[in-house]
């Protein structure tokens, strides 16, 4: 007889067996496994009381609700904008196109002190751990599998941003925000991302994009643009195909052989 899967044991323990599963349970004794589920529940609650988790969840839910309201407001403003005169639209489009021009792909020498507000174009600054110190990486620096990278960003005065990377194997990674549904508000000063990254064995390059805007950014749409670039043969050099109003800049590192 096939072993009853864990998910179905959970349903039995909660007395919520779906009709489509009832036949699978005929003649099966799950008493020990149900007891184990209940014991695990009790142990979990004893080790991690519910109150702090509930507080964290409520805080996240409040943030999500605020962000959803913000998105609705942006959509409303966009619709109003579409209804304005052609002359006004032309002015706005001209302004946006001008501001969307990519900046030169190089890292300027900047003060990376987190307490200093740094002006200039949005950029990602990568550091590699070498022994007990960090080495700042210039564009096209050769890096290797296993190198530990720490990223910092400067949003260049733009309030919202997304940071994602593309590697030579077509892998796309979201670095900021940490989740697709998290707010895209960026710090006003040069800021380190909370996690370091160990490079994998992807070949050719690692390319870090920072996409910024004056408005909240659609993270999923932005990741889709990076994935679309990943599918192209010139993914190591070409720009992302992004909606107007989004600024992009990238730092490319070369992958060396081990």
């Amino acid at each position, binding site marked *: 007889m096939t072993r009853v899967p864990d998910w179905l044991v959970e349903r039995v323990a909660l007395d919520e067996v779906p009709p*489509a599963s009832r036949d699978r349970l005929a003649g099966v004794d799950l008493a020990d496994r149900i007891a184990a589920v209940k014991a695990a529940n009790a142990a979990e609650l004893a080790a991690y009381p519910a109150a702090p988790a509930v507080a964290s969840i409520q805080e996240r839910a409040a943030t*999500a609700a605020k962000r959803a309201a913000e998105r609705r407001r942006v959509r409303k403003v966009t619709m109003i904008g579409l209804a304005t005169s052609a002359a006004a639209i032309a002015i706005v489009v001209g302004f946006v196109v001008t501001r969307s021009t990519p900046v030169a792909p190089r890292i300027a020498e900047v003060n990376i002190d987190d307490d200093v507000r740094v002006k200039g174009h949005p950029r990602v600054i990568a550091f590699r751990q070498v022994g007990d110190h960090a080495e700042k990486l210039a564009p096209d620096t050769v890096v290797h599998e296993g190198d530990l990278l720490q990223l910092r960003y400067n949003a260049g005065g733009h309030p919202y941003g997304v940071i994602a990377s593309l590697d030579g194997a077509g*892998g796309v990674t979201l670095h900021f925000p940490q989740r697709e549904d998290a707010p895209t508000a960026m710090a006003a000063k040069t800021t380190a991302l909370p996690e370091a990254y160990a490079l994998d064995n992807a070949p050719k390059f690692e390319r870090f994009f920072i996409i910024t805007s004056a408005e909240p950014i659609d993270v999923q749409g932005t990741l889709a643009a990076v994935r679309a670039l990943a599918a192209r043969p010139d993914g190591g050099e070409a720009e992302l195909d992004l909606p107007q109003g989004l600024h992009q800049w990238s730092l490319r590192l070369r992958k060396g052989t081990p």
Partner: protein
Amino acid sequence: MVLRRCRKLLGDDHTARDAMHDVFVQVLSHSDALTDQAPSSLLFRIATNVCLNRLRTRRRRPEDGDALLVEIAERTDPAARSAARAALDTLFRNEPADTALIAVLHLHDQMTLEEVAAEVGMSVSGVRKRLAKLRTKLHSLEARP
């Protein structure tokens, strides 16, 4: 139940706890549209989707393993194992989100087609077609040079 589900799909405890919070945030955010029928099924489904979203955005490092997706590939077609490992990201990248959910429920959780259909609110034939399409896609990926 939700935490166990997240642990099983994501692996490490810290990430699973964070994902568990996300599950309940989604429940709170969509509470107006939810019914109180079979809450365990709803939580299971939301947890699975939250975890799959995280797996999709996680960097593919060898140490990450992506054991869940590898398992799906292996169960889908053992003969295509090595190719499937290399093609998993491509396999799910452009598929509707619920295709990955269907694959996980059937191939990882061992739900029957009828159980999957009830879980995701589709017909049995619809589920069968999605799985067949996934297998076909795996074979075509395998055939790539």
